[in-house]
C-alpha cells in the first residue's frame, strides 16, 4: 500500500537552515547537509529545501548545496525558491534534486508550469501555494513573495481557482501552505485542506500548523492528504520522526517505518 509521507521542510538562507514564525524573524537552526542526513536517517520520507530569500531578492542565488545534498541523501528531495525558468529548473535537477517547486514565478507566469512539464515531466513539477484565509471576505486567497514580509502581496487568485489552474497546466503535486496556521503549531487547516482535496487530482501535501503528534493523524484521516510537511516541530525536537511514524502506524495510517 502507498504510504503517507512525512516531509520535514528545511528553510535555507545562505546555505544555513533557518526558521521563522509566520514567515518572520528567521533564526539559524544549523548546517544544511548534516541536518538533511539526520532527517533521512530518522525516517523522513522526503525532504523539501526552501530557499526563502530567492524569490523575493531577485539576486542570483548559489545553489551548490543542492549537489552536496544529493551526494549524501538516499531519499527523494525537492528544491523550492528562486526557480524562474526552465533553465533554472534544469540546473537544480541536474545537480540531483528529484523535484522542483515553484510558487511566485508560477503566479507571475503560469505558462512556466506547462514549459516545465514538457521539459522534465509532470512527476517533478511541484506547485507551492501560500493561501491566506481572509476573515472579512470569508475567502481563501493566494499570496506571493511570502519569503519577504515587505514584498508579500495578495494576488487576484482565490485558492481553489489557482489549484484548478495549476493542475490544468501540468502540475504533478501541490503543497498547500495555510498561512494563518504557519509556525503557530495549532494544527493543520483541516477545513481548507479537505475542500482543496476534493478538487485536487494530483498528490496534495499539507503545510502549516503542525504542533502535536495527533495533528498529523487528523490531517491524514480528515483531509486525506498524501503527505504532511512540517518544520519547527522537527527542528526543535518537539516531535521525533520515528516516534511520530510509529504512532501513525498504530493509528492504521499507512507508514513506511524504518
Amino acid at each position, binding site marked *: 500500500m*502507498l504510504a503517507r*509521507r512525512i516531509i520535514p521542510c528545511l528553510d535555507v538562507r545562505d546555505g544555513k537552515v533557518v526558521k521563522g514564525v509566520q514567515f518572520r524573524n528567521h533564526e539559524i537552526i544549523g548546517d544544511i547537509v548534516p541536518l538533511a542526513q539526520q532527517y533521512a536517517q530518522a525516517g523522513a*520520507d522526503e525532504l523539501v529545501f526552501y530557499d526563502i530569500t530567492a524569490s523575493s531578492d531577485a539576486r542570483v542565488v548559489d545553489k551548490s548545496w543542492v549537489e552536496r545534498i544529493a551526494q549524501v541523501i538516499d531519499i*527523494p528531495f525537492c528544491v523550492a525558491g528562486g526557480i524562474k525558468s526552465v533553465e533554472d529548473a*534544469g540546473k537544480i*535537477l541536474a545537480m540531483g534534486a528529484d523535484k522542483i517547486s515553484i510558487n511566485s514565478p508560477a503566479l507571475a507566469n503560469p505558462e512556466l508550469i506547462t514549459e516545465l512539464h514538457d521539459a522534465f515531466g509532470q*512527476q517533478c513539477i511541484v506547485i507551492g501555494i501560500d493561501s491566506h484565509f481572509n476573515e472579512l471576505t470569508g475567502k481563501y486567497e493566494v499570496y506571493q513573495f511570502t519569503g519577504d514580509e515587505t514584498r508579500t502581496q495578495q494576488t487576484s487568485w482565490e485558492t481553489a481557482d489557482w489549484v484548478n489552474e495549476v493542475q490544468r497546466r*501540468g502540475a504533478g503535486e501541490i503543497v498547500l501552505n495555510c498561512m494563518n496556521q504557519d509556525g503557530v503549531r495549532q494544527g493543520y487547516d483541516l477545513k481548507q485542506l479537505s475542500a482543496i482535496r476534493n478538487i485536487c487530482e494530483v498528490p496534495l501535501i499539507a503545510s502549516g500548523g503542525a504542533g502535536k503528534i495527533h495533528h498529523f493523524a487528523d490531517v491524514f484521516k480528515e483531509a486525506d492528504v*498524501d503527505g504532511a510537511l512540517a518544520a519547527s516541530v522537527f527542528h526543535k525536537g518537539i516531535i521525533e520522526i520515528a516516534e511520530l511514524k510509529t504512532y501513525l502506524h498504530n493509528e492504521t495510517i499507512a507508514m513506511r517505518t524504518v
Partner: protein
Amino acid sequence: MAQNIVIIDTGCANISSVKFALERLGVTVTVSDDPAIIKASDKAFLPGVGSAQNAMASIAQKGLVETIQQLTQPTLGVCLGMQLMTALSHESGLNNTDHVTCLNLIPGTVEKMSVGKLRLPHMGWNTVNPNNNPLFKGITHGTYFYFVHGYAVPVYEHTLASCEYGMAFSAAIHKDNFYGVQFHPERSGDAGAQLLENFVSL
C-alpha cells in the same frame, strides 16, 4: 575486482542521483554517451525521467538505439529507463495520443495507470513483492521503495516484482541480461542500496 560500470547518458535529469547512489556503495562509475565506452562496460545503467517521447528522441539523436539493443552485459533500467526497455509506450505529450516506439529489449507495453479515485502520478513509498531472484536478494515481501510515475507495465510473464496502486503493475521486469525497475533505487534508502548492490554483484 574493480568493475567497469557505465551510466548511459540519456540526457535525462536523474543521472547525478544514480551516480551518487553508486558512489555511496564505493563503486566507481562513468557517465557516457560514447557507444564504445558503453559497449565495453561490465554493467550498464539506463536512467530516465520525464516523458518517453523526449527520452527516446534524445537516445535516437545520440545514435544510441542500436548500441543499447546489442548490449549483452547486465543492464538496469530505472523508472522511465525501465519503460524504455519495453516495445511500446502510450506516454507521449499532454494532448498527444501517438504511441512511442521503445527499445524493445523486453516485450511489453507501457500503459497509462488506471487507478479509480486514487491520485496520479503514483508518488511516494509503496510496498514491493519480489519473485525469488538475485536482483531482490535479501529484500523481503512488503519492502518499501520510492515510486514516481503515471504510466506502468502491467503484471505479465516478464514481471520480476509487483506492486499495487489501484491496480497491480510491474515494479520490476526482466529478460535475459536486461533488468528494469519502475521505482527509484537511488532514492529508496537502505532497500534501494541493497538492490543496487545486488545488481552490481550479478
